[in-house]
């Protein structure tokens, strides 16, 4: 087994000094070392999207990224995005539209949707479905998630106009 080594991660705006094995993924370190358990392990294989976090503003599967490679990158998790207007609008819309049931997919879904809305202010329904197609949900049938993302996009657009 590889050796435990100290690493520094910039997570949610703070430098976090921690340790990792050489093969440890970003998901393992943020969940087990930093106790940021919002990102979920649904497959550990890059398929389900439940572990989605932002690295330098881009959505990334934390289960596929090596923690060591993420030093000097800006990492943002669901826990750190809550005071951003886009995330707040998404969270409100998810609640209003009942866009979750068990909620296990939700943090990853929200982070992926956050990245989408950061890129395109008023996505179409097809845009939303395409952008989130790498995030699985077994509960909702997806319809209410799409509704929530579109609702948030419109709320943000209305705010921008007002």
């Amino acid at each position, binding site marked *: 087994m590889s050796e435990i080594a100290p690493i520094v991660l910039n997570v949610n705006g703070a430098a976090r000094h921690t340790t990792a094995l050489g093969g440890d993924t970003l998901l393992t370190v943020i969940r087990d070392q930093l106790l940021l358990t919002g990102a979920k392990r649904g497959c550990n294989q890059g398929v389900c999207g439940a572990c989605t976090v932002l690295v330098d503003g881009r959505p990334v599967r934390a289960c596929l990224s090596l923690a060591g490679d993420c030093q000097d990158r800006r990492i943002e998790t*669901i826990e750190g995005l809550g005071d951003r207007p886009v995330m707040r609008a998404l969270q409100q819309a998810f609640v209003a539209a009942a866009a979750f049931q068990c909620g296990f997919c939700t943090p990853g879904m929200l982070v992926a949707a956050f990245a989408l809305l950061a890129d395109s202010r008023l996505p179409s329904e097809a845009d939303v479905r395409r952008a989130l197609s790498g995030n699985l949900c077994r509960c909702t049938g*997806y319809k209410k998630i*799409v509704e929530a993302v579109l609702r948030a996009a419109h709320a943000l657009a209305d705010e921008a106009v007002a």
Partner: protein
Amino acid sequence: MTQSVVGVVGLAAPQLEAAEKVDGSARFIADLNRPGMLYGAVLQSPHAHARILSYDVSRALAIAGVRAVVTGDDVQTNWRMGAFIKDEHALAKGKVRYVGEAVAAIAADSEAVAREAAAAINVVYEELPAALSPHAALKPDAAVIHEELANYIKVFDTGSAGNLCSRTSFREGDIEQGWRDSDLIFEAHYLTQAQAHVSLEPCGALAEIDANGRITLWSANQSVFRVQANVCESLGLPMSRLRCLTPRIGAGFGNKMEPHVQPLAVLLAMKARRPVKLVLSREQDFEMVRARHPFDIRVKTGVKRDGTLVAREVEVLLDGGAFADDSPGVLGYALLMSCGPYRIPHAHCHGRLAYTNKMRFGAFRGFGVPQITFATETQLDEIADALAIDPIELRLKNLKRQGDRWLGGQPIASCGLNECIERVRTASGWNGGRHRAGSAGSRRALGMACSAHISGLLSTGAIIRLLEDGSVLLNTGAVDIGQGSNTVLSQLCAEALRVPLDRVSIASPDTDGSPYNWGTTASRVTYMTGISVLGAAAEVERKIKEHAAEILECSAQDLELVPGGFVAVKGIPHRRVGFAAVSGRAHWAAGGPIIGSHSWVFDQKTVDPKRASVVGLPFPQIGAFVFNAIVVDVEIDETTGKSRVERAWSACDVGRAINPQMVEGQIEGAFVQGLGFALFEEMVWNGPQIANPTLMDYKIPTFIEAPSELYAIIVESNDPGGPFGAKSVGEIGINGVAAAIANAVNAAVGVRLRRLPLTSERVLEAMLASEQK
């Protein structure tokens, strides 16, 4: 009670857990940690069937950081668990019976060390011949999977023998007379596949022992009480020594109803004397837990030329896998539902369940009905075609109505199926013709199916306490697996006591303090637990009025609860007293704290012996029927055979929607899970081994396959026995999906596939074959 006074029933209230679920703070099993906690890992069997000759754990124990190892030697032979047949140890003992079965487990300082140590355990096996299909298992010369079967404890007359796990038969009317009375007889054979639950959260458990030797166990579960029973049966513990709790659950769909790694986590914690968390990987979750049964189905239906159904025979053979689990229930229930919601005077529905050397199959949303419905509802379309009757008209002609009796003889208290059918017929524009213009190179048509389900069985309770400040604490023991039952039960409680929803808090299920609840399964929580909530609330109301009568110096009969947490003299709303004053009096002056409780067991008999004769009935009391009609609009690509559901309408008679938005969520989610079952989800075995135990290889529907035009339609028949008229919605929406899609595919491209899933390859092959004819 049916009227909503304060408007909490019928309200689309957000989940009580909404805030924690969107800010990432909701804690699921993998998110829990305890001081001094160790991590568990499992060694799985490489063989489908083998005798365990010896274990060598010395290399594993020599690894730094390893704290405990457990094997089959740590459990006694007579410690067996099981819902219907007690046939399963906490981990393999003496024999392994499927590839992937837990053979040993490790507790260590880290997950990595635990996994390394598990791999270092050496087990010597003597391989035995394996039975990998029910047909092979039931051959007289097949290797016997459970030599001790005759001695196992069984909870009903299973008829077990050899590798026959159980058998069930329903007879009503006179089937031979039925065939004689029929003008035409249709018979066909159908196959359905194994479907994986894929709850997004893999199974896991965390066990801790206190200084007194009492154990606390958190786990991904659908019933803290089933966890308690299973762990104690499999580890020889008195139930009073084990306390089961629940974190948030990342959905269940049946997968977490019966045990997975809870007994192993407890065994490791007892041996290590430290808390142990054991969470399965996604692959292990595919390989070690349970899945939807593959069904082999023969359906024979006799009809009059005018479309009147006369006789139905259904024969099924189920692959149960290595342990009985919920399988005998699935067999019995599937047969109970195999005449569908139709009047068929002569019926014989019978089947067998075989042990095989595969992972156990068990409860999965629909509980056998999606499989049976695929067969029976596609056959109805074939009958409609042959008789040149519109498929909807054929169904309407034979529909059961309120007051009719279900197969077995139980009366139907409420039935909104007729309205479900009319709603989907109108919404889909069915009467305008089933064929639609598809995009270039494709064909498109509508298909439909109906189905039914139940809402009531087994036992449940509720306790409501009025706290000193007049706030209300509800405790039911029902695990919210993500569907929103905490919210719905709180809504019922708030409505009954006429307080705002935020005045009610709901206790987390706890086997130490909650009333018994069999589980969040069988679509039963709203109906069963809802009735208990109303019963407990009625007792609280009565006690509140007794106190208020003293305070207001009037008779309790002259009082009523008024919205907002007050009790007032009828017609004189200002002569009132608040719940806080009442509760204060109860706590400090007279009568004692106000507690209301209720518990009950569903006691409507499944079978009326004067009407039906039944052998091997796993559920003697089950009922409160719900209904569904689905229309789908499916487009098939003529060059690839790929089917795409463009639009879907699913109307469910749920009795009464306590929270309409959550009801829609259940209908939509069930539809899409059914779409995966219909079109592409399939667990594949390569010999004894599951070939696709990853999400890379086992695909579930994504945003792309799920139709954007998915319309959940709520029909409310207001069941006279249900809480505010409610019945259920958890499973009904999945039952008819595969049949409706298959019927649409047939209407569009003229091929009748009797095997699921309807993959592109199969549809294309059938299209090519039919062109050659």
